[in-house]
């Protein structure tokens, strides 16, 4: 499924030749954890610093809005070099790293990825760097107020505070499934992210009812917590790990072998963060629902027949298209729905698109996030569509808000498929 799987850079091993022994990575007044970070990241940072091409810049959704060179992936790498040289400290750089949705476009557009990527499957790891730098800041006691508050609330309530002043809580995490009689536990469980569980409840209801229509058996978790991914993205790694341990323990206790994921952000967390936390012990199969549904359609187990008279375009969620190389299956699903007029934009052009909703950007920089959403909907408006279809619940709230001014509906792909299957989904598309 993956075009260019992320991989450890070959650089540290293959390009050693004394690079790690040149004595430049001394303390420079940095804390021990910073020194360790710099020794881990110095060669990767030099790979960017030395080339300095900046191909990443115009494809970056944040840079397209701010036009500020120190919000660029190039700067994120160069700062590491400057810290190693003793010119900058983690206090100097930390705030700049909020200006990232971790969409991964920069990695794909990087000449180092494009060129050696074909051969070595190498990929520049800017997203990882941003996550690690945010974590380094937290480890050094440098907090961004919005992130800190968000993660405190998440920690208190075991879910993200997606409803604003309205508290979310463990007692209500399965409310979305009301009336559907979904069992608890089993070999396969459906994991529902915080946004879909509390805000866009129509989405998990659609998924659950489609799977039931196909005869695909699944249950719900005994006690589902937030996946922990947002905490990891914002630098609160200890919290992320605690949440991961809770969820894994819940799966283990119920004998779960397989987890269905409807949210691309969870998919990243379960396929990248959890394996990193738990190593080879993590043997749970992670299934992306949008891929599963495409397969069920291909096998003839689902046949959408109700025509949907809409003129649509499809928004490639960053974490599917750019991070995981998943772009064919959503189009296969849309291709199976009768009645649609589909103005598609190819996945490479969409490298420079983003909803703005990723990695906590709307928490610390809501005005930038909003502008990114508006830019995305401006692109859709040029296609003269009445509907934008997404496959990511986190993108759908901001895009829907931006779509209102442009008379464009934002619809979730799972909900659209359910409609074409004649399912009356129920639930809410907003709080």
């Amino acid at each position, binding site marked *: 499924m993956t075009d260019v799987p992320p991989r450890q850079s070959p650089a540290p091993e293959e390009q050693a030749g004394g*690079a790690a022994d040149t004595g430049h990575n001394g303390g420079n007044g940095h804390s021990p954890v910073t020194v360790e970070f710099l020794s881990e990241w110095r060669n990767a940072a030099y*790979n960017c610093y030395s080339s300095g091409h900046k191909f990443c810049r*115009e494809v970056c959704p944040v840079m397209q809005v701010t036009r500020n060179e*120190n919000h660029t992936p*190039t*700067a994120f790498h160069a700062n590491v070099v400057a810290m190693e040289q003793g010119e900058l400290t983690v206090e100097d750089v930390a705030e700049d790293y909020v200006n990232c949705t971790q969409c991964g476009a920069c990695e794909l557009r990087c000449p180092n990825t494009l060129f050696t990527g074909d051969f*070595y499957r190498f990929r520049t790891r800017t997203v990882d760097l941003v996550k690690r730098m945010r974590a380094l800041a937290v480890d050094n006691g440098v907090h961004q107020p919005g992130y800190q508050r968000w993660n405190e609330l998440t920690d208190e309530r075991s879910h993200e505070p997606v409803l604003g002043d309205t508290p979310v809580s463990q007692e209500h995490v399965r409310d979305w499934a009301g009336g559907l009689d979904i069992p608890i536990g089993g070999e396969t469980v459906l994991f529902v992210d915080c946004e879909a569980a509390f805000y866009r409840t129509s989405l998990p209801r659609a998924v659950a009812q489609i799977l039931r229509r196909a005869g695909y058996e699944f249950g719900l978790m005994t006690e589902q917590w937030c996946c922990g991914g947002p905490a990891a993205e914002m630098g609160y790694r200890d919290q992320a790990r605690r949440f991961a341990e809770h969820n894994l323990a819940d799966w283990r206790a119920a004998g779960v072998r397989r987890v269905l994921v409807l949210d691309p952000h969870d998919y990243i967390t379960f396929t990248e963060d959890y394996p990193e936390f738990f190593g080879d012990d993590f043997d749970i199969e992670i299934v992306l629902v949008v891929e599963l549904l495409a397969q069920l359609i291909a096998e003839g187990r689902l046949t959408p027949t109700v025509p949907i008279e809409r003129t649509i375009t499809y928004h490639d969620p960053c974490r599917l298209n750019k991070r995981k190389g998943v772009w064919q299956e959503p189009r296969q699903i849309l291709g199976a729905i009768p009645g649609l007029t589909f103005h598609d934009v190819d996945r490479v052009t969409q490298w420079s698109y983003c909803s703005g909703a990723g990695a906590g950007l709307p928490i610390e920089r809501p005005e930038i996030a909003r502008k990114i959403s508006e830019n995305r909907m401006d692109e859709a408006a040029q296609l003269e569509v009445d509907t934008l279809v997404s496959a990511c619940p986190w993108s759908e709230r901001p895009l829907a808000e931006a779509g209102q001014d442009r008379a464009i509906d934002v619809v979730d792909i799972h909900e659209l498929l359910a409609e074409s299957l004649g399912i009356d989904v129920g639930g809410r598309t907003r709080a």
Partner: protein
Amino acid sequence: MTIAPELSDQVVSELADAVGGQHVLTSKTARYNRARVPAPFPVHRWAERVPDLVVMPASTEEVAEVMRIANAHRIPVVPRDGGTGLTDGAVPERRGIIVDVKRMNDVKAIDTDNRTCTVGAGINMLKLNEVLAPYGLLYPDDPASYPCSLVGGRIGTSGWSLIGSRYGHSRDLVLSFSFVLPTGRVIRVGDGGGPKVSKSSTGYQLKHLFMGHQGTLGIATEATLKLIPKPEAELSPFWAFPDYDSAHQCVQKLAHAGVATFAGAVLFDEWKVDYLRRDDEAYIPQPADVRALVCAVAYGNADEVRAGGKRFMRIARDAGARYLGDEISQGDWAARHDRYATPLHGRTRAGQVVPMSWHCEDSAINWTDLPQVRLEWHRIADDLRRRFDMFDDWGIFAYTSAATGVDYLTEIDIGIWEQELDDESWTAWVQAKKDIAEVAVRHGGSISACHGACRDGEVDLVPVELGGAFDVMLDVKRAVDPNNIMNPGKYLLDRAYETEVE
């Protein structure tokens, strides 16, 4: 010599009034990340080039106000566009104010009748062409930095385009531009006075003067550009040769053929082929008897490209070339043209792979002198590598600059293990650059066809190359920038302000 005074609160406050407080950046990251370009520089000397602050104006008027403030306080100003240049134009040598134009990236007008567009100087060509695509139009300024360099920087460096042999280079494609002088005065510079005129005989032809100055005369803020119909077809045949001399002969026969769709030709020398074979993962290995390569590129209407392509194939075959096939031809041009790709690693003399940055020294060389220049340049690179095991010779490309084959952008690519650069090896590198430039000048060429020539090393030879014209350059500089606030330290222009010693 103009050096930034400590910027007073008064100055910062005036700048904030001019561009808005949030667009005056004083953080260390804002300043450090505008202190470098892709050209190598010893990392331990980074702090030497850090500006005092950065402003990000949104309009010509705001730039003019910043200039007036800077001129009144005698503060150095360095314009920064893409910051992708290879001669340090966007790097401050005497601190001061960086005027970063990236916010001025709007498309102001598209004139399909006269085939022009008017844009802010901070727009990138790839992004511009995304906007032009629905109109079937293209802005064909196509440098290696196409995905990231900006129109204003192309004006400031007088850029060179890969397909310029057909469509022209930046100076041909930019019809006119708004230009803020160091005093804050705004003028429109073009061929004559009309903003959309491509050929005028009115008055002095100032357009060339205000292009390629590396930010030493002022700041371009808005430009009107010439557009072409988006080409229907691209052809990029690659041919292999058993020796350099036959490839050298062939490339000029292709340029001489007079094919209208000819957009450029590239000659790879033996060192380049060796390097690609050794370290370029994207290079599809060829038999050992392949010693040199030639590529020709044609763009235009499909029927015309097809007809021209047949002629190219016949010419190359008669010149002893072996065609490498469609797959390699298309793939290799895509890799080299669309991706700006170099492997970004080289080797020590012992063969150890190490991370290296790519640097190319570029010159304009006549076709007749290419073989000899190549040998002399490789001797310089070889000597450098022998003494310092952090340089690697990555070979020479020569690209046609014009359809007639009169001169070639000739570049020797040198891999530099930048992490290892110390003062001694840096001094040797600067001397090597000077030696490379000396060869170009001695052979009747020009130090730079593309990047500019204001870095340490080659800059010393600029007065030699230009002769009496350099004295006129000094006169112009003094007249336009009486207080030497524009990018001081570049191009030896401090000499314009030296008082004669009795």
